[in-house]
């Protein structure tokens, strides 16, 4: 029913890496592959974080939520008011033993090393989907391998999505990642599409 085992995950991830190596996409293994869910594939890129549509008025219409109560949290960047900013994006594809599906963890830092706040990510989603779903879709959790806080996309419905494509997809990681990724700025090259090509 759309779920995969750890060994299957490793095999699918490995063929994913084969394509990545061919087109120099930069994905690589990290961690201990002999341990259940102890390894993941990762990629780090620099790209712009942009707001989907400049929701105007956001600053003006809310005079009460003003500077007086701004806590100086040095670890989190202020909400990005500029239209675009170059950020470092770290994407990790892990295996979730409880859901038996792949799961995406990621972090986004501004160029001066601040973590980009969740609010900016909700707004920056390219499909607008995150903006409506908010906590249902994206929140922060301890990275199961690195033991540090990371953002992650909730895997509850991943199996359902993969189930839809059962039989047609030969690599569930590609199917799932190509569907979910764009919402958080991860666009898969068209070359990955060949991994799921049906044998005709």
């Amino acid at each position, binding site marked *: 029913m759309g779920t995969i085992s750890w060994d299957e995950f490793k095999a699918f991830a490995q063929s994913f890496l084969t394509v990545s190596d061919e087109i120099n996409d930069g994905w690589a293994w990290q961690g201990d592959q002999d341990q259940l869910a102890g390894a993941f594939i990762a990629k780090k890129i620099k790209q712009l974080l942009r707001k989907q549509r400049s929701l105007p008025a956001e600053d003006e219409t809310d005079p009460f939520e003003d500077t007086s109560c701004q806590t100086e949290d040095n670890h989190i960047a202020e909400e990005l008011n500029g239209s675009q900013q170059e950020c470092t994006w770290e994407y990790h594809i892990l295996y979730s033993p409880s859901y038996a599906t792949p799961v995406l963890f990621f972090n986004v830092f501004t160029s001066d090393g601040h973590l980009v706040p969740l609010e900016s990510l909700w707004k920056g989603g*390219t*499909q*607008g*989907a*995150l903006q*409506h*779903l908010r*906590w*249902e*879709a*994206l929140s922060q959790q301890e990275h199961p391998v690195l033991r540090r806080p990371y953002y992650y*996309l*909730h895997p*509850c*419905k*991943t199996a*359902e*999505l993969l189930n*839809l*494509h059962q039989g*047609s*997809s*030969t*690599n569930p990681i*590609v*199917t799932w990642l*190509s*569907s*979910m*990724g*764009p919402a958080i700025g991860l*666009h*898969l090259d*068209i070359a*990955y*599409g*060949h*991994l*799921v*090509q*049906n044998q005709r």
Partner: protein
Amino acid sequence: MSDSPGTPVETPENVDTAEAPAESIPPEPSSPASVADRPNETNKHKIDILLKATGNAPIMKQKKWTVEKDKKIGSIIEFIKKYLKLEPSESLFLYVNQAFAPAPDQIVRNLYDCYGSDGKLVLHYCKSQAWG
């Protein structure tokens, strides 16, 4: 003497051999045969796409559409969402091969080059609350 009757016989043979090289492949293999096959030749800058529903997605009354070659996948997704009157919170995914979702800024021509056949590109769409 013997030469003169021989010449008219040879001439048709010569013509035949001269025509033989015409079999060689035309110099423009890039021109897609599919475009010429289509009755409507005005659509050279357009591609036929076929939209098919999977999973619980509602079907569309009109399945075959003609879009411009440099149309982005993202705008096709938006179009389908509007056509099917989806809620803003619902996500719609578009797949080639039923299994790969091209990036929203990918253009139709690139997909057609890789995955098109018989003069059209088949795209499957599914509606999914793939979040949370």
